[in-house]
Structure formats: C-alpha cells, structure tokens
C-alpha cells in the first residue's frame, strides 16, 4: 500500500515537471501563433523573408548533416576498429564542441575568416566571403554538431567488437564490402539516430550562427535568427507563427527519434540472443 502511494507520488511529480517545463512552453508557442486568427498566422509564415530563412536553414542543415555523417562514419571506424596510441585523446578532441559555448564556435570563425582573421586577405584576393555569408553559417553549424554522429556510433561499434570484421577480412573481403555487409547492418539504427539528433541541432542552432551571420534579412538569416528579429521588434504573433513551423519539425523529429530508438532496441535485443 505504502509502496503504491510512493510510486504514484513519484509519477505525478515527474509528470508535472515535464508538463510545466516542456509541454506548457510548447503550447504557448501554438497559442500565441494562432491568437490573432488563421489569417495573421498564414501571412506571417508566407512572408518572403520567412521563406528565404527557412530555405537557408534547410540548406545549412543538409550540408551539415551530410558532412558530419561522413565524419561520424570514418572517425568511428578509426577509433573503434583499431588500437593506436592517443585513441582516447582523439575521442576527447572530437567531444570538444560539446564543451564549448556555441557563441565561441561562431567567434573562432570570425577570428579566422573575418576582417581581422589571418585568412581574410586570401579570401579578399579570391572574392570569397565566409563571415556574414552562407559558408560561415554552415561552418559554424558543422562545428557545433560535429560529434553527434560519431558519439552515437563509437560505443555501438566498440560493443560489437572486431571479430566479425576480422573474419571477413581474413576471407579477403575489402573495406567497403565489410562495412556494407557486416558493420552497417549492426549500426544502422544508431547511425540514423545520430543523424536525426544532428539534424535537429543543425536546424535550431542559434548562438554560433548569430555571431557569424550578420543578420542580413533575406540573405544570411536562418529561421531561428528570423524569429529573434521578429520578437525583438515586438511582432509577437509573427515570431510565434514562424516558431510553430519549427515546433512542428521538432515534434516530427521527436516521433522519428522514438521510432528509430524502438527499432534499434528491438534489433539490439535480437543480437543478444
């Protein structure tokens, strides 16, 4: 009886916490977005600047996720399938972006490519622009999300061990064949999971992008930055309307994430047997 009471109490406490901290803010976004009616909402998200910002956000996300997936796949292969000195150190280096403020991530690219940066004269000579331009936004986003995929893969691949790969290599299989036939089926859900997390973060990155973007409307404004401008100019309804696009994407990502996690766990439990 007492046990039942304790468990109910704990569940209620946890549920209230999640409701107040996570669900109510989510509802706030939707409520404010629609509070002046459907028309205002529609015109806010049909605003050309909003659409351009959405495009830039998607572009940055796609490029970032593609490159970070490549990085994740190769770095996890190097770290989990081989023994070498400094392996632990390399793993730590990969985690650096998690320990550093996104604002600093933006700052370092300003220091390299900006007016005072050591690469600036080279860029000038070739008429290239990184800071306050799209490449800077993409670079900063890659920096911030670099570890996502490899962090998912490394523990999975280390737990799998090397014997299957060794067995295949002993029989003369090449690297690509080994990866496709033996490693990939094992890590595919983990890989997908990492990609989803990376996508979410890449689309929502604010601090780093805000430093390198320069906030040029219609040019270097991503959706999160566009929301900031709308909010600071007291266009509350528009800000929340645009936000609601991102909320919908976030919820889709959450659902996808849960499906992938469920499938991954199912596949994992079959492995054990």
């Amino acid at each position, binding site marked *: 009886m007492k046990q039942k009471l304790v468990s109910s109490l704990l569940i209620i406490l946890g549920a209230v916490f999640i409701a107040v901290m996570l669900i109510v803010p989510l509802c706030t976004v939707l409520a404010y977005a629609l509070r002046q009616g459907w028309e205002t909402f529609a015109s806010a998200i049909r605003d050309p600047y909003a659409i351009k910002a959405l495009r830039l956000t998607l572009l940055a996300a796609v490029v970032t996720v593609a490159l970070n997936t490549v990085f994740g796949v190769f770095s996890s292969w190097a770290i989990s399938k081989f023994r070498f000195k400094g392996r632990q150190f390399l793993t730590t280096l990969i985690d650096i972006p998690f320990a550093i403020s996104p604002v600093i991530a933006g700052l370092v690219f300003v220091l390299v490519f900006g007016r005072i940066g050591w690469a600036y004269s080279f860029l000038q000579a070739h008429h290239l622009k990184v800071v306050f331009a799209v490449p800077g936004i993409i670079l900063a986003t890659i920096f911030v999300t670099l570890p996502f995929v490899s962090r998912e893969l490394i523990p999975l691949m280390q737990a799998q061990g090397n*014997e*299957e790969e*060794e*067995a*295949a*290599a*002993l*029989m*003369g*299989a090449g690297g690509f*064949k080994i990866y496709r*036939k*033996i490693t990939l*089926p*094992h890590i595919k859900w983990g890989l997908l999971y990492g990609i989803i997390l990376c996508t979410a973060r890449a689309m929502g990155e604010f601090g780093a992008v805000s430093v390198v973007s320069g906030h040029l409307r219609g040019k270097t404004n991503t959706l999160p930055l566009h929301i900031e401008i709308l909010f600071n100019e007291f266009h509350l309804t528009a800000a929340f309307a645009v936000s609601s696009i991102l909320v919908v994407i976030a919820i889709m990502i959450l659902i996808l994430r849960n499906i992938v996690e469920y499938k991954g766990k199912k596949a994992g439990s*079959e*492995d*054990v*047997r």
Partner: protein
Amino acid sequence: MYVKLEHIYKNFGGFRASDDVSFSIEKGKLTGLLGPSGSGKTTILRMIAGLEQPDAGDIIIDGVRVNDLPASQRGIGFVFQNYALFRYMTVFDNIAFGLEVQKKDKKFIKERVQELIRLIGLEGMEKRYPHQLSGGQKQRVAFARALAPNPHLLLLDEPFAAIDAKVRKELRSWLRETINKVGITSIFVTHDQDEAIEVADEIIITHQGRVEQKGSPAAIYKNPTTPFAAQFIGQSLILDDYTKLHGFDKTGTYTQAVIRPEFIQLARPGKHLYQNAAEDGIVEDVFFRGNSLEVRVNVKGMRLVAHCSLEEEAFQPDDPVSVLIYRLFLYNHDQVQLVENRMLEDKNPVFI
C-alpha cells in the same frame, strides 16, 4: 614440416606475449596449443593467421615465409572463439561469404555450401540466422564457413569454450572425426588439458610466452620434460618435502615433487603387498566423482589425493589407511625427473 615458427617475439605494451617461440607442425596433423590463460597461445594463433604481426621472427607456411603476406592471402581458415558469425546473414550466406569474396561462380558456391552444410549436419537450417542456432550449431557453422574457401590450414581459437559441458564432449569427437575426414592441417587453442589430450594428435604446452613442451598426448602425460608441464598436466599436487615419504630420498638438486592420483594406491591397513613401502595415513574426506571416488588422505601432514574404484568398500573420513606411492616427478627450477619408490625395487619384499 608444414607450419614452422622460428624465434618469434611479441610484446603488447610491457607484456611479453611471445618469448622466443619456435616449433613446427607436420602436414595433416591436428595440433593443440595448451596453456593457462595469458600464456600466449592465442597470440601465437593470431600471428599465424596474420591477425597480429610478430615483433621479430619468421612464420613459414608450406615453405613460404608469410610474415609480409596479408592475412587473406595465407590460405587460412579461422574459427573465432565466439564464432564471429555474421549476425545479419543467414547460415547459407555466412558459409558462402568467403567464396563470394573470391567471386566464384554462383552455381559453384551453391554446391559447395550445400556440401558443407551436409558435412556439418545442418540440412534444412540454411535460412536461419545465427541467433536462431544453439551454441553447438553456431560452432559447426563457424567451422563450415572457415572451410568453405578450401584453406590449407585451419586455426581454431578455444573452439569449445562457449559450449555447454555435455554438448562439448560430443562436439570434440565430432570435430576430431570431421577434421580427419577433410584431412586438413589444424591448430587449435585450449586451456583445457582433457580437451587437448582427447582431441589433439600433438600438444604444444605454452607458459609465460614460451613453448614448454611439444609431443604426443601420451608422451606429454607420461614424460613431462619441464617443471611447468609436470605441474600443469594431470591432477597434479605439489609436495614441498618429498623426502619425508618412505622410499624417496633427496635426489640431486631436486627440491620439490609433483604427485598425481594415479601414483597412489590406497588399501586397508596391513593389506598392502609391499607393506614396508607404504605410509600410514588418515582419510580426511571422500568425494563421489561419478565413475570413481576421490579420497583425500593426510600423510605426515601432507594432503594427498587418490582415486578409488567404486567396486571396493568405501573409505570413511577418519579411517586409518595404508598409502602406497609408486612414483613422483621430482623437479627444481628447470629440470624434471621421474623417480620410482626405492622400496619397491628391493629384491626381497617382505611378505606378511
């Protein structure tokens, strides 16, 4: 000689896994590398396979030095300790993998795989995945997969370690028969002396990165040539002061002795044929061992272990007992010698 290792050295960090290892193996023989864990036996196997590189020394297979040859070109089949079956492939695809890599003809692959599946007796299970097989079945698939590309040399790392005790017995004789049938030169690693003695044509004992002794199971059992081999093989007990026993004098520089249950015969007091060669002891414990009784007796403060037939009247704890010791292995730090009980050699035994 088919496989030959010459002065192999291998270090892992500060750990010396191979310390001047040299031995050779005849074609067609089934050889067991036997040693306690950490003795370097798996390292030797992995170096022959090409999964590890020796720091120094030569590995020669069929007259060719293979040190610089990639593992996949050494013509070796390898059975991993935990089988390393490809868990996302069926039994058929697992066995076919090596042939597919060699880009063999589809029809040929099919026939070869079917032939191997018949050999391992898993007909009808081609479509199963590894997680749907029992331990023994997995082990057979791993064996077939290693054999599929027709290797010249088969290497097996602790082939029975992950299998239940009962299935293990069956699988041992199955593996021995199958390897004989296929006629392939094979080397397996084990820490279990019963397994090595039962399965191998020849045993190589490893200890602390060195080869201690090489020989047939019978020779190794009867004539250990190093102190370690004497202690490691059989159900051996170490005696610190063997001179206390009747019929054994201090011999040379030998300081300690090894005794095995089969060196001891127990009898009721006064019933021994060679009464003056026997010791008086007290039974401490009796254990039922299925096909025999294991009796622990205390002789002059030393605890000895002997086996008794179930046919005889069983000893009880605290029974006085007459203990006859036929022989001992005496050893010092680098030599072993078998000595017989001096009293038994006397030409004039005393009859009672």
